[in-house]
């Protein structure tokens, strides 16, 4: 990989920057018998929102907003990066001449004549851009990552090169950053109690792999439950969400297979695809024309050079894209996959629990049949307040994974208290704990999402994504505003996530809010007031769309 270290900066979702994406974009030429009659190809960031093109496939309107970047803002953003880069070079120069003190850790004297471990330019971005605003990430917390959290106060005396903990705690920060969609990040209540009991009985670890001596009854119980929850024949659970992708895709495809991957897919999917040894082609984000073009070409032309037909084609998509807030156009993907006999791998890391009337993810949201998705993958980290991931599907699939998954043979199995937390929270969502709490949480999350998104929109911010997605990216654009927004929000006791390049395209730096069912209306209002205040301060209200004033009135009333 030639990408520098900095290219993975500001974590979040790494993406493929498609080598062949440009090709995929020119796809107006597919004719006649395509499943989706071609309209003029819409640039994903084109007009304000794309309402479903294939309206008939959707049971309810599918509305996603991607308001175009205002031209002036784009120019200013590039200028911002330009200035930062010039200053970066200047300071590197000063450091070289020992005029400025250099804080970067140094190579050992004994190894000075080794080939340098890092190329100097690799860390340019880290040294000169990221360092300035580093205090916005890795903020240590010292409580449950619930609706409110406590942060460890830290100060820096050397412009973020080192941090010192003051020993004080910033209490009751409203948490708009954790993926705690259903509010199961709790230290009290039924789930925590169940997990505590499991700790008492089993201990923390397992000390063996599933295949050897680490297949506990808890794991089997969990897998039966997950299968039932998803509505699939069988499932398998793994100890880490990231590894669920990176260690299982290689078991499913190999040489002679083709993987079609969304350009914004998460790093774990990219890694898994790469480790599989299959050919990888990338389609434009959530763009069905692009996907169909790739499918047609792949089948018609076969493998490059040999022209043998592909052994199989696997489409990799996510349910909710964590940096865009968009929801996959699943009905269309399924129609395509059926028409072209491809297989579908759906990563529901963010959508499981967070979408759908029963919390069963994006399949449930669209009212589709889970059997139409070949591989249902998801994580337990987010909505379930635990850790790990699962794969669900037909019994053949799961049987095959049990015998061929890298994770089952080589990785230590899931910690029993974690498994118990998932079992308890999942039962709660399904209403099998004998209460209505799960349903209420789902309801609350959906209400909170709609409310929060609408209010932000009304305030004049540019927000991205689907109107039903609890991941709400709000555009900041300029690099200096990344740091400023994060800090100003923390001053107002609100913890938010801000992300910039390379987790996002260079000019599309953004803040991201994750809505939780645990947020009360009051908390959201406090957050919204603060966001509006900071938005005025930093001039973030970029949107040029008119806001319907009627609705605003309605909300003003409901506030009283």
């Amino acid at each position, binding site marked *: *990989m030639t990408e520098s*270290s*900095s290219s*993975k*900066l500001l*974590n*979040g979702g790494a993406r493929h920057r498609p080598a062949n994406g440009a090709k995929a974009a020119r796809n107006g030429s597919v004719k006649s018998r395509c499943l989706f009659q071609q309209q003029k190809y819409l640039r994903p960031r084109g007009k304000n929102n794309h309402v479903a093109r294939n309206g008939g496939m959707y049971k309810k309107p599918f509305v996603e907003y991607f308001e175009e970047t205002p031209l002036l803002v784009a120019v200013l953003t590039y200028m911002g990066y330009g200035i930062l880069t010039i200053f970066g070079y200047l300071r590197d120069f000063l450091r070289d001449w020992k005029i400025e003190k250099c804080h970067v*850790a140094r190579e050992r004297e004994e190894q000075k004549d080794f*080939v340098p*471990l890092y190329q100097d330019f690799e860390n340019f971005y880290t040294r000169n851009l990221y360092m300035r605003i580093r205090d916005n990430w890795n*903020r*240590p917390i*010292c*409580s*449950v*990552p619930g609706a409110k959290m406590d942060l460890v106060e830290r100060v820096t005396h050397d412009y973020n090169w080192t941090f010192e903990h003051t020993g004080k705690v910033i209490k009751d920060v409203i948490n708009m*950053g*954790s993926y*705690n969609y259903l509010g199961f*990040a709790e*230290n009290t209540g039924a789930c925590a109690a169940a997990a*505590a009991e499991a*700790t*008492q*009985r*089993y*201990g923390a670890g397992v*000390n063996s*792999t*599933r295949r050897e*001596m680490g297949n*506990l*009854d808890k794991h089997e119980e969990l897998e039966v439950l997950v299968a039932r929850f998803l509505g699939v024949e069988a499932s398998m659970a793994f*100890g*880490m*969400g990231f590894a669920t992708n990176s*260690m299982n895709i290689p078991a499913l495809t190999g040489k002679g297979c083709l993987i079609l991957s969304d350009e914004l897919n998460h790093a774990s999917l990219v890694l898994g695809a*790469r480790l599989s040894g299959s050919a990888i082609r990338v389609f434009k984000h959530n763009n069905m024309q692009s996907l169909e073009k790739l499918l*047609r070409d792949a089948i*018609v*032309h076969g493998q490059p050079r040999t022209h043998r*037909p*592909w052994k199989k084609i696997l489409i990799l998509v996510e349910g909710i894209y964590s940096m865009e807030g968009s929801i996959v156009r699943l009905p269309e993907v399924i129609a395509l996959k059926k028409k072209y*006999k*491809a297989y579908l791998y759906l990563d529901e890391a963010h959508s499981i629990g967070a979408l759908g009337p029963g919390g069963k993810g994006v399949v449930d949201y669209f009212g589709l049949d889970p059997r139409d998705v070949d591989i249902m993958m998801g994580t*337990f980290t987010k909505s379930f*307040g*635990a*850790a790990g991931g699962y794969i669900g599907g037909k019994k*053949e*699939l799961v*049987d095959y994974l*049990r*015998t061929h998954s*890298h994770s089952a*043979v*080589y*990785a230590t199995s899931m*910690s029993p208290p*974690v498994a118990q937390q998932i079992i308890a929270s999942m039962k709660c969502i399904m209403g099998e704990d004998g209460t209505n709490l799960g349903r209420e949480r789902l309801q609350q999350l959906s209400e909170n999402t709609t409310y929060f998104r609408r209010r932000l929109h009304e305030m004049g911010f540019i927000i991205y994504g689907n109107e039903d997605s609890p991941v709400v990216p709000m555009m900041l654009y300029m690099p200096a505003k990344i740091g400023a927004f994060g800090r100003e929000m923390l001053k107002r006791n609100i913890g938010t996530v801000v992300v910039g390049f390379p987790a996002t395209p260079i000019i599309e730096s953004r803040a991201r809010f994750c809505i939780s069912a645990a947020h009360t209306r009051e908390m959201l209002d406090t957050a919204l007031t603060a966001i509006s205040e900071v938005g005025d301060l930093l001039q973030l209200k970029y949107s040029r769309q008119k806001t319907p004033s009627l609705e605003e009135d309605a909300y003003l009333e409901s506030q009283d």
Partner: protein
Amino acid sequence: KMASGQQWVLVEMVQAFYEAPAYHLILEGILILWIVRLLFSKTYKLQERSDLTDKEKEELIEEWQPEPLVPQVSKDHPSLKYDVVSGPPSHKIIVNGKECINFASFNFLGLLDNERVKVCALASLQKYGVGTCGPRGFYGTFDVHLELEERLAKFMRTEEAIIYSYGFATIASAIPAYSKRGDIVFVDEAACFSIQKGLQASRSVIKYFKHNDMEDLERLLKEQEVEDQKNPRKARVTRRFIVVEGLYINTADVCPLPELVNLKYKYKVRIFLEESMSFGVLGEHGRGVTEHFDVNIDDIDLISANMENAVASIGGFCCGRSFVIDHQRLSGQGYCFSASLPPMLAAAAIEALNIMENDPDIFTILREKCRHVHKSLQGIPGLKVVGEPFAPALHLQLERSSGSRETDMKMLPQHLLVCFQCLDRQIAVTQARYLDKEEKFLPSPSIRVVVTIEQTEVEIEKAANCIREAALAILK
């Protein structure tokens, strides 16, 4: 004069044209036409030549039949049915309904069911809940994580440590964080699967040397030196690494670390050391293979280990100098893009470190047990013990390896039977499992025997006898 001279040439040419035979002119005319044609014809392209009509495309699409997503797994596939452990996988373990003594889990120090560890994990659970709901960057860094990193660094006597939420992902993420396309990695043939995956993800040039064979390694290093002299410009930017395990999980023997360090300085190659089996096992204080050989830990560029064996929690860590380790905080994929370790598991690891620090005698006890087990397993007919006497996870392999893998593989069911018989007699041992097709160098089939400090002498004798009898009955 010039002008008249030129004119003369022209006249001569016209003259020659008239005098030339007709066939000559025709031929030249054809050639000129041909050139014009070539100039204006479309460039030759393989793909476009087979311009398919939409109908043909449609037919092709109709015709194409993919392979099934996964091949059918036969119902009696040997690895389809897992042994089921009911209740905790501690010293006494219930496998498939039978209570056994555990000789299979990597619970070397018996910390899994340690009360102190459990109390700490519980206290942490009551404070933080279970999950972290985010990656380290986005409110997924807990004070417990920072404490654990500090403690690990202190324990290992290195500048810095970084924790991962999954043992497997640790070295698999660490290698590609440093070694990129074009770099060169020298790696032992017996390296475990997570190293192999890390190497694959790095897309570097990979050179395998024979297991623990320093001469073979030096041969490769020398070859590379010659190569470098040919192309010094490229050599200046090609990073080189040696990746070895402290105590190999696949062979239960130890790497010759002092010699490796010599080679490191001689050929200017960095050393990455994977210590999942040796951390908390080797050395007076359990610091692993560096302490075992009394090698300065700063001479090792990166040490990685998981906390799923001796520490009996979940996750892994890397440690070394800040110059090296800090880089992973932005470049370690499994660190950046994964949810962080549940705080209760970090708390359990901290308490395990406390126990290891307060009571270094446990390492001595463990070594004695290892020696005991190693000794008692000698002389079993048909089976040989593979591994060092101080290794806590030994392998029992066929005594006379037939030399051909196929024959060895046929013996696999026998291995399994041995395991089953032992289970029947209340000794839990397991076959070492690999993915045959995925391993670069598939280790020989073996039965894994794991030593923990909880095993009493009587139990060890019992286990040895049990394996002996089973081997006698099955392997003859």
